[in-house]
């Protein structure tokens, strides 16, 4: 087990830098998720920590040891690939134990460890099979067992669940999380799925174009997004964005919409300032027309999501959606009112996209 420190990491393919001066520090035992749209450099970052990709500049330390120039096998890390990367010419048991056998660990020592990880991941009945005779979920479990049995200092996962169907993905996600609670091994998990990141992470590192956009716990990322990009990326249904102007008395106005804002959260706002409001559909609900911060709109569409429904409305020609459990009473074409608390309003600088939250 170990902490990981990356300082001033640069990675270029040819002249084009994919990652440009990235600093990151991951404490021991933490489950960190690299989240971001595809192509933002998550895999590249992970592969540099694994040692599969050379850094162009910067240093990487694992457990206080500088591993920047070490081959992957010497770093004490284990990786699980999106494609599972099982050895097709070996049985499941041999796949799992290859690393230990290669290190010359004795058979009598390997057997109980194999039994333990196979039990933990439910692989005991399949140990003699070839990987190609297993389902996708079983194959990914074998890949996890292969990583676990070596008791590495760090686990690296590169989109391990992307090739599985939704149901299995959820199940394995829970298993990975449970496994981490039990083993407490420092883990980096790469995904482009924000829901997966939110449910599994101790901390999320949200990346964009090779830079860290925001780093924090899932709650911090969700409740206090540092920028328009983060707010837009996290949460389903996606946040509504509205251009507005600040008026006297900490009120934001956009056409027929007038929302009173929290002076504590946004002390720096001045009348006349152009801002971008961010309203999460999930933080709004149906309200009386005269309720504080009520917004009136014409219903365009109601989407049934089971326990709740998303209501998409038209307000001054733009679409705003909100989520309500009472969506069954709402009909398209009706006029509805919905509202949210001032402390749930996000405000961004329309130029830089950064949050204007004061604290």
């Amino acid at each position, binding site marked *: 087990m170990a902490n990981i420190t990356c300082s001033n990491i640069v990675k270029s393919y040819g002249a084009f830098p994919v990652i440009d001066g990235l600093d990151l520090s991951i404490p021991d035992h933490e489950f960190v998720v690299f989240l971001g749209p595809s192509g933002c450099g998550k895999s590249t970052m992970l592969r540099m920590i694994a040692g599969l990709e050379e850094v162009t500049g910067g240093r990487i330390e694992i457990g206080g040891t500088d591993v920047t120039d070490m081959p992957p096998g010497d770093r004490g890390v284990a990786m699980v690939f999106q494609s599972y990367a099982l050895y097709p010419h*070996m049985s499941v048991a041999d796949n799992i134990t290859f690393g230990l056998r290669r290190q010359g660990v004795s058979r009598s020592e390997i057997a109980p460890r194999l039994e333990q990880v196979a039990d933990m991941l439910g692989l005991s009945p399949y140990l003699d099979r070839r990987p190609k005779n297993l389902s996708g979920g079983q194959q990914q479990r074998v890949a996890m067992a292969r990583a676990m049995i070596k008791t590495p200092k760090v686990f690296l996962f590169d989109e391990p669940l992307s090739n599985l169907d939704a149901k299995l993905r959820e199940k394995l996600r829970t298993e990975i999380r449970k496994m981490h609670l039990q083993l407490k091994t420092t883990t980096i998990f790469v995904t482009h799925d924000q829901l997966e990141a939110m449910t599994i992470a101790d901390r999320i590192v949200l990346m964009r174009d090779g830079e860290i956009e925001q780093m924090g716990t899932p709650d911090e990322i969700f409740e206090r997004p540092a920028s328009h990009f983060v707010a837009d990326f996290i949460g389903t249904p996606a946040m509504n964005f509205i251009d507005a102007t600040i008026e006297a008395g900490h009120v934001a106005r956009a056409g027929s919409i007038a929302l009173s804002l929290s002076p504590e959260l946004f002390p720096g706002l001045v009348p006349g300032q152009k801002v971008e409001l961010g309203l999460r559909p999930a933080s709004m609900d149906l309200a009386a027309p005269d309720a504080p911060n009520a917004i009136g709109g014409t219903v365009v569409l109601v989407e049934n999501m089971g326990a709740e429904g998303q209501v998409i409305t038209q307000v001054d020609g733009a679409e705003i959606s909100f989520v309500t459990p009472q969506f069954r009473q709402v009909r398209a074409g009706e006029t509805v009112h919905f509202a949210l608390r001032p402390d749930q309003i996000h405000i961004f600088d329309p130029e830089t996209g950064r949050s204007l939250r004061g604290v």
Partner: protein
Amino acid sequence: MGRVISATLARGLLALLIVVALGPILWTVLGAFKELRDIVTPVPKLLFEPTLDNFATILRNPTIRDGLLHSGVVVSVSVLIGAVLGIPAAHALARHAQRFGDDVQFFVLSLRFMPPVAIAIPFIVIYLDLGIYDTLFGLILVYLITTISTVIWLSVPAFERVPRDIEEAAAMEGCSPFEVFWRFSLPVAAPSLFGAIVFTFVLVWNELLLALTLAAQNATLPVVAASITSLGKEVPWGVINAATVVLVIPPLVFIGLLMGLLNTSVQSGRK
């Protein structure tokens, strides 16, 4: 009902194709065990008294015996060296040659563009000067051009089909680049590599022109087989058939051996 008919038709067609494909071979094999008068009868004979005379003639004939031996040595050595040098080269090309990989591959292929006649004459001159004309060593040397280039050309795609992730996973477990090649890339690519080697083997086993021009005295089997027709006035059909069988058997044995090797090497992953 329609399904049954189409299935029967398909089977019938398949049987016909097999007969067409294997018929001549079967006839040759039968002919190898026939006496000449059984072969030249106007009515083809399926039932006859088998004889080993033809094989005896062949194996007693020193030219043919030597030809078999020469072929065996020349082909196995050149294919072996071709595989030992060509397969690692192909792996390196498939994995590491990003910038000039295509050029190198094209160069390798271009070695096969030249008609053998074009190189045969200069080679005679060079070999005479070097004193290796009409030696097995000289023949092996030119065959290496064929074997190495063919093995490389056919093995690059085999290694490209090995998922890179597998090699990376092995590297993560501490394997050196050579170990990754030896214990992972090679066994995973083995079935395709096997095809490459068999193809190369057959290519040089049947090679006639260079063998004829560069090693007329130390003749290989194709050279001998080509000259058998002039053994006597009367065309010795039985002997020719037997010679064909002898010519065909080594590649078959070779393929069988490689198959066995392949199966054990795939299983030895367990260790």
